[in-house]
């Protein structure tokens, strides 16, 4: 179309001779469809509830069902503060992400924004490391699921030890991948019901627990100093528990399928962070008023079950165990899907071989990408190191979040013609600046092992780009 275009990404090739699938004019986006250059329509079929359910369903697992024990052990009752900090950071990132997503409502999410605003190298690093980040997150959720499944068995009187956690995680990982491979048509709707049921159980539990903490039922609660270890652990713990907010950006990865993207994307992203943040803080307050934080730490990853048992005896414990199973499974499932979408986004731009995003016509599913994600997930589950898994996933997501904030500033400073978001962040420099500083800042609070693994992954991905796709530039292209 435009002979004087500086960027002709469509002509650049990677090592295999493949070029990015770029367009010469903006995709026509309506509330109901996107239209490709050839005039083919891509139907948008996910509404606001569906978007919220993706965000909430991905996030809600860990903060309630895995972290309360670990977090209270590190920060005491101030773990509630850690979760609040996490929510604020997530919001500071969710706002810029919303703007970028309404300007570019396509699948790809963070990778797409960063590669277009900052260039192919940062894009490739983000795209590939977010894929690995999701692999780590999936493994983490699966181990969490194993823990809950083991607890359910124990509750049912089956004598199992801690040794079944990893095998259960592995089995569920294989089953989830298989389920997604054969394309269960109503998986997404099922996910909506699972999330709905979960929220119902949680609201009951937290409502009852909250009244109990206020002394309504006349039981003595455990008075404890809010900051038993000083303020610093509150921040380091925020870095650990930030994993439980990884999910709102997943909404952006399905942006191409969301109805009325200009309205629903920001609402789904911000709404799910606010809702989930509120539930997390309430959970910690309830948990730390039921038990001393030292006791919670001893309970470990299933601390919330003991809290439920203290509040509602056997039935309480069973209800929360069921909720935990549903939650970790829905988070794991959502992450399995996101890994395949993340791989599609980079392979579309020829950063990895295009074969990686091949689709299976019979089942309609991206079988190569699903299989490529499943392998490393199972290896990580077998290692079973929950805290490291969580932190590496957080590390890689935080890098992407920080860069998305930078991408927003870059886009706004030098707005390309096609940049026309429906939602604009107010005081964008301040919001995006704080978002970037907070995201990068949290990296400093992580364990050295996690930082080292995270950095190593980024270096390797940058190396891959230099080796495989060095000629490809993506800055400013569509």
């Amino acid at each position, binding site marked *: 179309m435009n002979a004087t275009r500086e960027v002709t990404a469509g002509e650049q090739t990677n090592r295999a001779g493949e070029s990015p*699938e770029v367009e010469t004019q903006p995709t026509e986006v309506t509330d*109901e*469809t*996107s239209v*490709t250059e*050839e*005039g*083919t*329509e*891509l*139907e948008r*079929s*996910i509404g606001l509830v569906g978007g919220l359910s993706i965000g909430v369903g991905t996030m809600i697992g860990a903060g309630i069902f895995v972290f309360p024990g670990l977090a209270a052990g590190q920060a005491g009752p101030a773990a509630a503060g850690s979760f609040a900090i996490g929510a604020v950071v997530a919001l500071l990132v969710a706002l810029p992400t919303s703007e970028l997503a309404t300007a570019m409502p*396509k*699948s790809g999410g963070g990778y797409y924004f960063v590669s277009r605003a900052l260039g192919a190298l940062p894009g490739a690093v983000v795209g590939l490391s977010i894929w690995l980040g999701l692999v780590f997150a999936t493994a983490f959720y699966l181990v969490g699921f194993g823990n809950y499944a083991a607890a359910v068995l124990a509750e049912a009187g089956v004598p199992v030890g801690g040794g079944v956690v990893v095998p259960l995680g592995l089995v569920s990982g294989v089953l989830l991948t298989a389920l*997604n491979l054969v*394309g*269960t*048509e109503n*998986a*997404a709707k099922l996910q909506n019901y699972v999330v709905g049921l979960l929220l119902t159980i949680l609201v009951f539990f937290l409502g009852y627990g909250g009244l109990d903490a206020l002394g309504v039922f006349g039981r003595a609660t455990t008075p404890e100093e809010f900051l038993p270890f000083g303020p610093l652990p509150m921040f380091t713990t925020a870095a650990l528990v930030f994993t439980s907010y990884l999910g709102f950006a997943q909404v952006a990865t*399905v942006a*191409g*399928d969301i109805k009325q993207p200009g309205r629903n994307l920001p609402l789904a992203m911000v709404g799910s962070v606010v809702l989930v943040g509120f539930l997390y803080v309430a959970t910690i307050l309830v948990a730390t008023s039921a038990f001393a934080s030292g006791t919670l730490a001893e309970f470990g990853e299933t601390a919330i079950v003991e809290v439920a048992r203290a509040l509602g005896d056997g039935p309480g414990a069973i209800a929360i165990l069921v909720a935990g199973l549903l939650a970790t499974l829905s988070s794991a499932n959502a992450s399995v*899907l996101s890994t*395949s*979408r993340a791989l*599609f986004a980079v392979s*579309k731009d020829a950063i990895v071989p295009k074969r990686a*995003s*091949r*689709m299976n*016509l019979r*089942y*309609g*599913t*991206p079988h190569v990408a699903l299989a490529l994600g499943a392998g490393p997930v199972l290896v990580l589950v077998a290692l079973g190191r929950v805290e490291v898994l969580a932190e590496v996933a957080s590390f890689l997501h935080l890098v992407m979040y920080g860069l998305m904030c930078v991408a927003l500033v870059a886009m706004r400073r030098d707005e390309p013609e096609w940049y026309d978001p429906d939602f604009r962040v107010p005081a964008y420099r301040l919001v995006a600046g704080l978002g970037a500083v907070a995201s990068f800042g949290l990296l400093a609070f992580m364990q050295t092992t996690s930082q080292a693994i995270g950095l190593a992954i980024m270096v390797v991905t940058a190396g891959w780009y230099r080796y495989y796709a060095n000629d490809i530039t993506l800055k400013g292209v569509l």
Partner: protein
Amino acid sequence: MADGPWDGDLSIREPPKVLIPVRILEGQTLPASLVTFLVPSEVVILGYHVLPEQTPTEQASMQYEERARDAVDDIVDVFHEAGREVETRVVFTHDRDQTVERVATEVGATAVLLPNPTGEISDVLVALRGVVDTDRLADLVATLLGAGTGRVTVWGLAGDGPFDAEAAVADARATMVERGLSADRIEAETTPSERPVADIVARTNEFDVVVMGEGEQGLLSVLLGDDAERVAEGAVAPVLVVREPPAEQA
């Protein structure tokens, strides 16, 4: 607007436009006799492919867009040879019903075809078991059958509800005659029916095409699908579903 053989007929109030949704990547085809039958009306081909929600539509279009467009072009050629220019749409979707409904509204389709295999078309069943837009129905049937020798059976299915099947059949018959279909080609009958969908399905082997209205959206249709879809599933003949006109014109 293409000049079909019947577009100039003054007795036709609103030229019928038939939307034909085709599962384009699954090798679904239109029987040649059906194409011949539909040529007198305006036609929109909707080639669609349904994906599970975990697959982005963009990903599918990247790989299969050309194949889908080629397959739609093949159908267009068949109509072209029969002397009918058609409009086309190609859609990748997660939700077939949403897509059909949206496209039908956008193109102003007066009827939607639910394809089934069929042979030479000479006997058409018009099944009335609830309120339907008689003008659109008559326009469609008169346009499709007008030039040929095919026969119509207007069949009212009287249930327990307030729907007056006898009156509806008489009205439909009169309107078809008004639109130029000779009265001796129309048969009219009414029977009581407890289970209209099952009764219609049971009679489809006597006919080559079924024409019916959308039916009401009740709890049952949410669980089991529209009446028309259930008929199409059980029937041995294709089903033409007459759409209600948009609310502001009603």
